[in-house]
């Protein structure tokens, strides 16, 4: 249910923007997810049902995974821990609660189809693009 709530929030947010920009259909959505959110597969899975009947129904969802990085107070540097939940500096071993990246659940960009719907490819091409992305 959590992933569905997230997918619905995403669709709602994107739809608001698309509505503000001439009620145009959405071609592509670029999302940044931190590895700590562990939502990539779940969001892909829920997106098609959450987007049904919305302006993003035919959109390609692109998810970029953001790695976990932490700031080590001992080394005074940003480090990448060895495991997803191993919040320790990989070099000096100090606990590193200061997370720099890895928690993001960010809508980065939205690409819209041109206002004239006749200039966009048909549904089949959009579906193919989404299929490629899903099976990549």
């Amino acid at each position, binding site marked *: *249910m959590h992933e569905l709530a997230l997918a619905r929030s995403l669709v709602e947010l994107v739809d608001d923007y698309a509505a503000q920009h001439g009620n145009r259909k959405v071609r592509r959505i670029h999302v940044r997810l931190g590895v700590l959110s562990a939502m990539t597969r779940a969001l892909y899975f829920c997106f098609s049902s959450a987007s049904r009947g919305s302006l993003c129904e035919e959109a390609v969802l692109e998810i970029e995974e953001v790695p976990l990085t932490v700031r080590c107070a001992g080394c005074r540097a940003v480090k990448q821990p060895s495991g997803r939940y191993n919040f320790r500096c990989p070099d000096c071993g100090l606990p590193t609660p200061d997370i720099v990246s890895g928690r993001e659940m960010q809508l980065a960009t939205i690409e819209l189809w041109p206002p004239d719907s006749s200039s966009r490819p048909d549904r089949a091409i959009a579906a193919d693009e989404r299929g490629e992305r899903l099976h990549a």
Partner: protein
Amino acid sequence: MCAVCGCGHEHDHQAHEHVHDDHLIAVEKSILSKNDRFADINRRRLSGDRIFAVNLVSSPGAGKTTLLVETVKTLSRTMPVSVIEGDQATAHDADRIRATGVRAVQINTGSGCHLDAHMVGHAMDDLAPAPGSVLFIENVGNLVCPASFDLGEAAKVVILSVTEGDDKPLKYPDMFAAAHCMVLSKIDLLPYVDFDTGKAVERARRINPDLQILELSVRDGTGMTGWLDWIAVNSGGGERPGPSAFRSREPVAVQVM
């Protein structure tokens, strides 16, 4: 230069979207930004009224309601207290709170697995918590989803009962990472279960090195004073501190292991 698209413009992607051409909109907003907006409204309202709001989370059956019932019985003698209860169905929990004489509102989430900030805002309208009071929000029993949804609370408290596994912090890390305080509950049952308190604490701190940890048993009263002190210290002890006291999301520890 804009780091999103390299367009050469100076603009703040956090504050507003930027249309780079007719088709591409750089949004740069949290997917949960709508919930976060409602949470900010709740937080402003709570701090404006000097209300200390605690979001209680745990798996089902960890003892959230039992802890709350005993907590509000004692706390309501010295300061105004109210409760928002979240469950998939029934008003059983709100009824248990009301039986103590404390005001409570029940939210039923239906198929939803967590409370969100919008629901809590409406529940606050109904409940109208008193200025300078403590507001407890008992979330739906679930260690996954409520971790992501900010309700506007000042502190998130995760309850882990000793009848559960001591590896829960590792199995549900997001919740333990998001919490300010972990309450180990039902410690009167420790002689009868295989729960290793040391391991649970070490595992929770591995996920969240700053986590404050309290141990208690509602049944025999062990540790209840420490828990009530934690609330008193973090809520300003009824001394009506200014709103800035609640702005910090770093509650003070009173009994840290």
